[in-house]
């Protein structure tokens, strides 16, 4: 056994010596260089082609749903402080009356709600620089965002980067990685949405961005009945409540806002789940920082007929009901707003 081991050591040493000398003269890897060069060039061309395709389709999708981020960002920079900035998913985009809120609290309101799958990290980073002293940041996330959605987003982070390239500098390394990994799917979805946009324009129908008011509220579903079907409901595996990243991120934002005299508040999204989900929602609420949470999550469970096309998108006529409920929660939690 020792002889064998010694033989192996000897062979390794001889191999190392021979190859160090041989490498200086000739090795097979050199012959692969033409192929490797072609691969590198192809990879660069591919990245360029993907980026171009994403930006082109993203440009058309400016008039799609994710493109309403343009109006929302304009509102964000033009609204005067102290202001109320609401961030969250599409429950905000579809289901809040920002004007009613604005009239009630006496502050300018910005509805940044878009799509929760862009990730909470992006939502925070998007508004961070526009938050000033005495502003209020209100987080209204869908239940699924607390459980399943990674904070750095997936396909939609690639889409939002292509549709609103101004915020590209705000993406972190993980978001860049996700954007790259999901770029193919993002391109497919951009392409599909751009077809919808082009089709609407050709038929003279208003596009998504034209159905979003200056405060960031969507009203394209005004007058439309509920088409939400029970089978769209998701069943949550309530063994794991929170994804590992979301609570630390909320804590981090809470510290940031407190250190900059900004008030951070967490509210809840309307949900079309059954009453049996109230236990799950109670557990979610219990995990959130109680001192900045307003309202009661199970109280935001509504009948299916209140919803438009998903378990979190209210029909137009129910926005006011939700907004009034939110106002009551804010007032009962003694959230004071500095008046103009």
């Amino acid at each position: 056994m020792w002889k064998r081991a010694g033989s192996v050591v000897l062979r390794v040493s001889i191999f190392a010596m021979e190859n160090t000398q041989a490498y200086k003269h000739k090795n097979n890897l050199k012959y692969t260089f033409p192929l490797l060069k072609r691969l590198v060039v192809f990879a660069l061309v591919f990245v360029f082609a993907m980026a171009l395709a994403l930006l082109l389709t993203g440009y058309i999708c400016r008039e799609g749903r994710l493109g309403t981020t343009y109006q929302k960002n304009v509102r964000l920079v033009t609204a005067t402080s102290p202001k109320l900035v609401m961030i969250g998913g599409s429950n905000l985009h579809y289901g809040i009356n920002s004007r009613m809120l604005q009239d009630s609290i006496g502050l300018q309101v910005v509805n940044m709600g878009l799509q929760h799958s862009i990730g909470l990290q992006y939502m925070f980073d998007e508004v961070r620089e526009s938050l000033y002293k005495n502003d209020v940041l209100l987080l209204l996330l869908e239940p699924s965002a607390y459980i399943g959605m990674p904070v750095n987003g997936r396909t939609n982070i690639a889409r939002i980067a292509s549709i609103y390239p101004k915020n590209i500098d705000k993406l972190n390394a993980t978001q860049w990685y996700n954007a790259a990994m999901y770029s193919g799917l993002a391109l497919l979805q951009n392409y599909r949405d751009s077809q919808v946009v082009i089709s609407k324009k050709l038929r003279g129908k208003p596009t998504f961005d034209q159905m979003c008011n200056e405060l960031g509220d969507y009203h394209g579903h005004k007058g439309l009945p509920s088409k939400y079907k029970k089978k769209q409901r998701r069943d949550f595996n309530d063994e794991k409540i929170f994804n590992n990243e979301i609570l630390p991120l909320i804590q981090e934002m809470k510290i940031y806002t407190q250190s900059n005299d900004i008030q951070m508040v967490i509210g809840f999204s309307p949900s079309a789940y059954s009453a049996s989900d109230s236990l799950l929602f109670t557990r979610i609420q219990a995990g959130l920082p109680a001192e900045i949470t307003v309202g009661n999550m199970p109280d935001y469970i509504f009948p299916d007929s209140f919803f438009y096309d998903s378990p979190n998108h209210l029909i137009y006529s129910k926005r006011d009901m939700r907004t009034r409920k939110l106002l009551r929660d804010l007032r009962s939690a003694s959230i004071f707003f500095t008046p103009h």
Partner: protein
Amino acid sequence: MRLRLSHLPELPYLYSMLFNSIEYLIFLPTVFILYWLIQDKIWWRNLFIVAVSYLFYGWWDWRFLGLIIFSSVVDYSIGRAMGRASDARVRKRLLYMSLATNIGILGFFKYFNFFTESFADAMQGVGVAIDPFTLSIVLPVGISFYTFQTLSYTIDVYRKKIEPTEDVVAFFAFVSFFPQLVAGPIERASRLLPQFSQSHTFDLNNAKNGLRQILWGLFKKVVIADNCAPMVNQIFDNYETQPAPVLLLGAVYFAFQIYGDFSGYSDIAIGTARLFGFKLMQNFAYPYFARDMAEFWRRWHISLSTWFRDYLYIPLGGSRVSSQWLVVRNVAAIFIVSGFWHGANWTFIFWGALNALYFLPLILRKKNRSNLEIVAADKMLPSLREFSGILLTFALTCLAWIFFRAENITQAFDYILHITHLSMDFSRFNVINHGSVIALIVILVLVEWVNRRKEFPMQNSTLPVVIRWAIYLILCILILANGDSNDSFIYFQF
């Protein structure tokens, strides 16, 4: 979505290195560069192949490594012992040892629960209630492939077709060669083993073809197969409420799902091997262009069908036996065993038997070698007769695939029965999703038809470089756009 075979234990896919995964995307170039960096020292190069192949295989589950190492040690030792033995009886005993070991391993891991449960069912049928003793056995990925590969070595050594190798590293490399380790092609020792004793120089044209073949394989797997899969699952899970045309479509989707999945994997394996200077056998030769079932089986999973031909069918006498009944027996044996190889379920056995039924008329009438050349070899389109043959063969194949896909025999017959009901109730049929999948299948068929004379469509492409690169870009984008599912390959379960 994966092909769901509920009777098979779950495989540890969580950490698998699938060919369409990020891990493999990092693994392959790294191995490629290191491989060619190694000087032309065959022993060291083979050792490197063994190391990376075990890393690749161990990535699935390190516990599986012991089994493949054990199988390799046994067959290497038996091969050497056979080489030294002059007595035919000793050689035969050694061969039986190899057969017992390899088939024993395969039988235990793959078929133990099937046999105990089938026995219990049979006893219940005669009124004796038995509680079957089953084990929670994890099926090692690729076991059906590498055991057959090592068996081919010992059988060929026994037949004195090849000399037993003394190079243990070369042998281990032959058994564990990572491109074809987990799902074939099942290589013969006479073809692959000598390649581990030869030095290789890098061939740019061969490597380019290798990359093209990998790209084409990924397209078939990720774009075609993975888009057919949810359609198949939806139709087969709800077959009771689907109209007859949709049920037929479901069988067609599955035909392309399994073709895209398996031939796609084979292409990736063969293309990968090309990058390292190795030549693996062609495993699929456009089987859906076959004009009869005999031609189909010359073109589908060629490595397995030729394995059964050489090691089972011919030793039984093949078609050169004294009576027609023996021919029937031999044909039935080869197809039923082939079906059984695919999985421990009566559906696979029935699928094999059905294919035997298809094949028998041809061989009994000695028409099994009517179509040896490529269809419409010197024409653009097939003749009406050829086209009819292609359609009929495809229809028969799809009928058999229903049994292959179904959870059990009852469901398969029920599915076929529902087709015969000729229901035209399309109220629950969503036409929107099907258009793009059908379009992809049509594109695949057209591309493969135009390039049917080549080993794979993009081989030695003479198109202008701009067009070629545009095609590569489109394929890469399609693969990336469809690559989110991370579905494993169907044949990993075999």
